[in-house]
């Protein structure tokens, strides 16, 4: 047997992701990596391993997976129904999947991106220093049925742990800071922007999320002739049609449409996970407040492991309850004792 995960079926947007590929901004390649890096950190905490290891990002829905050896897994990010050989598995928990057993992950109940982590990490070859698939750059490809991925050696043994995730799967208020082009938008336009309840458009991918709204288009002066300049993840770009577009993990490194503000890194997971149709609002924070938020976020990620607790199983959710020896010595009336 080998340490592998095999995909018997795959949803339309499965990819290998890690913390991304820094160091190539000057050559036009953004960092990329998981859309929800908090979910990567949570998975690493559940398995007691490095958050830099790669996982499978499940966009919108999961798939069917089998493992060449007994393998520890953790499930994080957008909650999806999951089962192992028909037995329901808790989301936001770690589990041991026996070799050959069938792990089935369904459609996201809310949010967008679920994550399947394995003990030892997905061990595909690094390209330019990372394992992250970067579709818009042409690095890697979406996963498909029939793919077999190597799994790294696993030093850990513990499973059956859970944690309570930070709520972020239903839109809400996203905090932003002013950026280098904010003052191209007059005060009235900035007020309009922060007063508007946007709906996340169904058109969204790893490059960016389009937002719809009622009312007048959002516009900067002379916006079709602004000099192309650096773009970073979280920048909120306003294209010619007046609809904001939030640039995400696989965005470009430069662009000429003006950006009204930038989502702070701590709120990027909320932005990534807002499902189609969810309401999103934007709220400016100043730089010192943003820094305090970021410091709290970094500290919270560092202590995720201390928030773990054993997974208590609710008997009503165990489909094969009768196969468990709940009280020893009881003989079933229908069971043939001589079989």
């Amino acid at each position, binding site marked *: 047997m080998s340490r592998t995960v095999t995909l018997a079926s795959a949803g339309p947007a499965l990819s290998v992701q890690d913390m991304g590929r*820094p*160091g*190539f*901004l*000057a*050559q*036009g*390649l953004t960092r990329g990596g998981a859309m929800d890096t908090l979910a990567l950190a949570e998975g690493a905490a559940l398995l007691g391993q490095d958050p830099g290891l790669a996982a499978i990002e499940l966009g919108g829905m999961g798939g069917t997976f089998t493992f060449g050896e007994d393998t520890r897994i953790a499930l994080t990010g957008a909650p999806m129904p999951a089962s192992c050989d028909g037995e329901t598995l808790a989301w936001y928990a770690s589990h041991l999947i026996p070799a050959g057993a069938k792990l089935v992950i369904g459609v996201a109940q809310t949010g967008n991106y679920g994550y399947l982590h394995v003990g030892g990490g997905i061990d595909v070859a690094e*390209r*330019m220093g990372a394992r992250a698939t970067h579709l*818009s*750059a*042409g*690095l890697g490809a979406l996963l498909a049925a029939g793919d077999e991925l190597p799994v790294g050696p696993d030093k850990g043994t513990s499973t059956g742990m859970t944690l309570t995730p930070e709520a972020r799967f239903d839109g809400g208020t996203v905090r932003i*800071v*002013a*950026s*280098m082009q904010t003052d191209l938008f007059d005060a009235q336009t900035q007020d309009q922007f922060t007063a508007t309840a946007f709906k996340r458009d169904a058109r969204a991918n790893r490059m960016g999320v389009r937002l719809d709204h009622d009312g007048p288009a959002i516009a900067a002066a002379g916006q*079709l*002739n602004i*000099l*192309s*300049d*650096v773009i*970073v*993840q*979280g*920048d909120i770009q306003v*294209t*010619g*049609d007046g609809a904001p577009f939030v640039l995400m993990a696989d965005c*470009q*490194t*430069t*662009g*000429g*449409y003006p950006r009204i503000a*930038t*989502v*702070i*890194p*701590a709120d990027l997971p909320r932005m990534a996970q807002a499902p189609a149709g969810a309401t999103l609002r934007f709220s400016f924070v100043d*730089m010192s407040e*943003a*820094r305090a*938020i*970021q*410091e709290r*976020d*970094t500290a919270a990620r560092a202590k995720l492991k201390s928030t773990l607790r054993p997974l208590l199983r609710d008997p009503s959710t165990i489909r094969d309850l009768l196969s468990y020896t709940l009280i020893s010595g009881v003989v079933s009336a229908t069971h043939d004792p001589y079989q």
Partner: protein
Amino acid sequence: MSQFPRIRSVGMAGLLVQFADAMSEPANRAALAFRAAVDSQGWPEVRETSTSLVSAFVSVDLGATPVEALTEKLSDLLASRDWLDAPLPEGRTLWRVPTLYGTDAAPQLAEAAEAAGLSPEEAVAELSQARVRVLTIGFAPGQPYTGELAEHWNIPRQQALSKAVPQGALVVAIRQLIVFTNTTPTGWRHIGQTAFRTFRPDSERPFALSPGDEMIFHNITATELSRIQSTDADGDGGAQREEIA
């Protein structure tokens, strides 16, 4: 007093040093030289650096580093010399890239020519002889922004994005030419088609071009482009290269 160079924060991802608010040759050289100078400082909080047309970006986690401290360091470095006088980088290459102008392969030539006040034939004659410089690499991996074309090519981007133009497309707006790395939606007009690959991820040199390189997009026929497309092995798309500095 000039408002440039100026330092702006870019979200919480770092600081941007802008040398002008419009494209200019000296400001482009200043950005390249200033970035190299920041790199040579070896400041521990700097994650990486890059340049755009007339600005240098210094990537720093502003959630961990106070913006004031880095601003002061950058201001001191800015004051140390006149960056607009900086020379171009050394080790530059001239690329001659075979390009099919117009036809169904590049359907917006006529529209772009009209915006520039030219006939399509005049536009091809000018563009295929223009020698442009790689001003910056960006948007997509290895993708060059080149310029500057004559003033009448200062045509705006389209209001609506084109759904997709193919890899190797030559597009024009605001006195600049771009060769696209990958199939992409764009507001720029598609006027030519090349077989040049700007990004070759599995090659030892994944990025073909560097800022400061020069390019000529000379005119070829559809037959020649097909021949190049069917025989090109290295991604150069039939381009000839020549060391110029």
